[in-house]
């Protein structure tokens, strides 16, 4: 299994909540910020579809906002691409489907779970370098209003059960 790691991010002592896959977190200005366990933004079930070199893929995950305030996912970085966009999939009345960019980011309300899922909101990843093969792992960093999280996304063709 290959792991495509992102640049080092200051580790944040995030609470070890059950099933948590969040790996690191820091404020965007580089200051570590201690937060209580109930004031966290957890990320679980991150996965990406396989893609050939130069192809596109989609990133999906679950955002559990237990902070006291709402957040907005603004952008995503990954070492396997220099271009990502937040999209949602739309279904038109004529039966066609397509993607629309979320230019203002993806709202993550407080005390809710927001799911990026097939057929819904997702992160489109362009020009993947190198190819993503089933079984690989990819580091992704999610930027919110005042902090960022880095997690590992597994390459798989279908959602985790």
């Amino acid at each position, binding site marked *: 299994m290959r792991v495509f790691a992102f640049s080092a991010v200051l580790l944040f002592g995030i609470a070890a909540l059950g099933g948590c896959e969040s790996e690191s977190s820091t404020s965007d200005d580089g200051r570590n910020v201690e937060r209580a366990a109930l004031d966290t933004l957890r990320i679980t079930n991150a996965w990406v579809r396989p893609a050939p070199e*130069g192809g596109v893929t989609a990133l999906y995950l679950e955002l559990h906002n237990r902070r006291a305030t709402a957040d907005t996912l603004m952008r995503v970085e990954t070492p396997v691409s220099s271009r990502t966009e937040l999209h949602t999939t739309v279904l038109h009345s004529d039966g*066609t489907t397509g993607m629309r960019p979320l230019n203002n980011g993806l709202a993550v309300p407080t005390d809710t779970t927001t799911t990026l899922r*097939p*057929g819904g909101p*997702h992160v489109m990843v362009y020009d993947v370098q190198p190819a993503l*093969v089933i079984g690989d792992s990819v580091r992704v960093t999610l930027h919110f209003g005042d902090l960022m999280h880095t997690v590992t996304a597994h390459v798989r*063709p279908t959602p985790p059960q």
Partner: protein
Amino acid sequence: MGLLALTGCTGDEADRIDDLSDASFELVNQDSTTVTFPDDFAGQAIVVGYIYTQCPDICPMVTANMRQLRDRVDAPDDVAFVTITFDPRRDTPDRLRAYREAYGLGDTNWQFLTGDPDTISQLMERLDVRVELSRGSYEDDDYLIDHTDQISLIDPQQRVLFHYGGSMTPVDILAEDLATIRPAS
């Protein structure tokens, strides 16, 4: 039962969506080998999916659904699994081959087809697949496409019997309908 089909699947004229026996579309597969559709699949049931490889969300779901169907029926020789791109300007044979391999289909006889834009446009129209740019232009090579989300079933007599929502139709339904049109059935 196919979502857009009429009732039953008796092969009667009234039950078919279209008859492709008079049609012939010259395409190329992922290895740049010429494929005449649907002639080259005569005698087989055909499961057809429609994608473009720059689609990260819906189109992979179509491919995954077809793959689950193929696994369910144990990849029989009397059924052809075929994916056709509706983005021939970008989806060259090389790109289709890489995509096919990324999805673990490199060792199968599942063919991924492309062709010249006019031929693909005519084929998509014939198979009721709508395609429209939603962002960008063909000139800048950086565009997104709104498209029909569809899988089709074509019987060994080259009659189009069913269209389904490609990404969301349960495999059980696809398998049930496929069983009724296989030559061995």
